């Protein structure tokens, strides 16, 4: 698999571009939290999703998470990551104010 980093831009086969807002490893798989971006690479808040990174027919692909338990576990991991990010943001905002 090609190396992939946070905030990289992926073009999917629906010809839309997504940025990797967060990424977690869970049970030997990589899960991505994707947010769509426009041509200026501004995020489109309304289009976000959690996917698993896979190899499909020898090609790199993302796959919807279909198992409820798996989804919950992964979502919790993302929850923690975004929570930490929100704390960081909140701290920055506070320090900006002071």
């Amino acid at each position, binding site marked *: 698999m090609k190396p992939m980093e946070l905030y990289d831009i992926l073009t999917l086969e629906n010809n*839309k571009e997504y*940025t990797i807002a*967060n990424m977690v490893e869970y049970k030997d798989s990589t899960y991505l939290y994707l947010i769509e*971006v426009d041509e200026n690479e501004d995020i489109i808040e309304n289009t976000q999703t959690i996917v698993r990174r896979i190899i499909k027919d020898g090609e*790199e692909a993302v796959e919807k998470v279909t198992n*409820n338990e798996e989804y919950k576990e992964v979502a919790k991991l993302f929850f923690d990551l975004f929570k930490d*990010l929100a704390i960081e943001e909140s701290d920055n905002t506070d320090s900006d104010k002071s």
Partner: protein
Amino acid sequence: MNLRVHNPEVARIQITTHEFETHFINGERQVGDLNDFNTLYQELKKLIQDYKKLYLEARDESTRKEYDTFLAQEIDFLNLMNEIMSSLENYHDVVGFVEGREIKKEMEQASNIIKYRNIERQIAILRRMKGNMPDSYKEQYQSLLNHYKKLRKEVIESEAYIIEKSSTEYNTMEVTTSSDKKKNYYTIDQEFYNKLPLITDKCKYIELIINNIEKVKGKKSFVTYCGVTKEISTKHVWRYRQYISLLTNLYKKYEAEEKDLIKQENERSNTDVCASQYASIIIALYKLGFEALPMINHPDRVMTVTSIDGKELTILKSRLEKFEELISKYADLKKLTPYLDEKSDLMVIQDIEKYQKIPERKRAIFNKIRFFEYKKEDERVLKEIAKLKKALYELCMAEKFVIFANMKAIFKTSGLPEQMSVFYTNIMSNVNGFSVSSKYTDEEKLQVLTDILLKLEDYEKRKEENKINLSLPLIIENASNFLKKMILNVKQVLSALPGKNKQHFKILKIRKGKNKNHLLEKIKEQSSYIAASIGMTVFAGLSSFVSSYEINKNLGLKKEPTPPLKEPTEIDRVVEKITQRFNEGKESSGIITYDYNGMIFELDSSAPDFEDKKKALESNGAVEIKQERGGRAA
């Protein structure tokens, strides 16, 4: 060293000490016993050192436990007082606010004292953390200290005032109490209590029970007050008495003022009656929307607002917006129903027989908070009332939205781990507002929320397209911005939930972003919403409500045709739908609402002490407020 014997170590020390004293101090020492002396002395010294350590540890532990218990009792006690004071404030609102009089001085004094005590306890709790107090508490601690110092002078004056006003002694009345073998359980003899003609006599009776409790030391006691049974510690009876005495005094004053009120009411002009009705609406809406003000817990958030005709009311700052809205709506309400016309009767009553059974003085109070019901079958009247109810319900819903919007502020201002708990508490309590019933699961409540939000989106969409000129209360529009964002995020998260078919999407290209920092900043800005959305999805179980259509639409991966625009009355349907759910929930929730002299008691029929409370309320003349379809009882 004087240590009490309460464990083997102490016993050993005492025995050894005794031996030591006997042999070496009291002159019974024998020649050649020096070694024995040394051995015994060393042994004693070690034992004492060991014990001292144990004793100190035990004392620390014991003190801590005792202190925790003390704090728990104090907090419990303060909650009880808070409850009573809130009830009293309701009562005061009805009597005092309708009359347009100032807030009673006694009430202010009592609030001061309770606020002060509450701060005192909060400081005590925080002090215990000193040394390892988290930074997040330091500011709060300092602010509490400042507040405490500021209030001190005021409280000394308040206490002096109350002591002066509470000097009446009651010594003549007999007290009937009952108790079981395990606990001291003092309850009001309802029959006797009921026969007492005046509230002051009833209070006097309660006070005597409290006196009686005071005599029993070291056991837990229970007291029933206004139909509510509470466990109190005998340690704190003195303080309970202090407040009961205060309440007695206040009730005594209200009793007299209530009589004056009735007298004045009879002499009042039609215009005054209309003003009174206006006040009734405000009070009714206040009661319709929310519970008593939690003044004690949020001393800084309370403020006084002035209504359009100069009357003052103390409300939470966060509710100011609601009150402004209510007041601005009043003109419309007045047009909606003939019962707000100055020439109309003050009150319409559905169950006239029940109403007639209420003592006259209570009826006067009752009149001021009930205005939904009708005395005869009149289509026109019913229609007007239905309109009024709808308008009221809309206002009630508007408030729910506002509170929900306030979550945004909560979310922004506090630290995230705590804020998440506050956030969920708020979600649940506010969603709960849509359907008071415990019959609904959280998921069902969230479904109602989802419905509303989807409709709001639909409304926004239609508004943008300028196809429909649909007006909603401004308050809803303001709140909807936040709500829309929340629900969209939730739906986005949900979009990754299981669908019927697996969906794979090839990655055509992976590249570096043009401006990584820009993306990071933008994602950071969204992170609290995303976390909340995931939280709502995973922890609150919203998942089952979003259809596969929503999943596909929001994923942007599979297009479906846009559904046709809905009828302009859709938002009305939403409100009706919620109203219907709300009423269904209310009717079957087992929540029984009673009106007792203007105080509203909500009893849960499934609670173990329901029958006791019900009996206590009914035997004291409280009236059950029946729920009606289409609106809540005020």
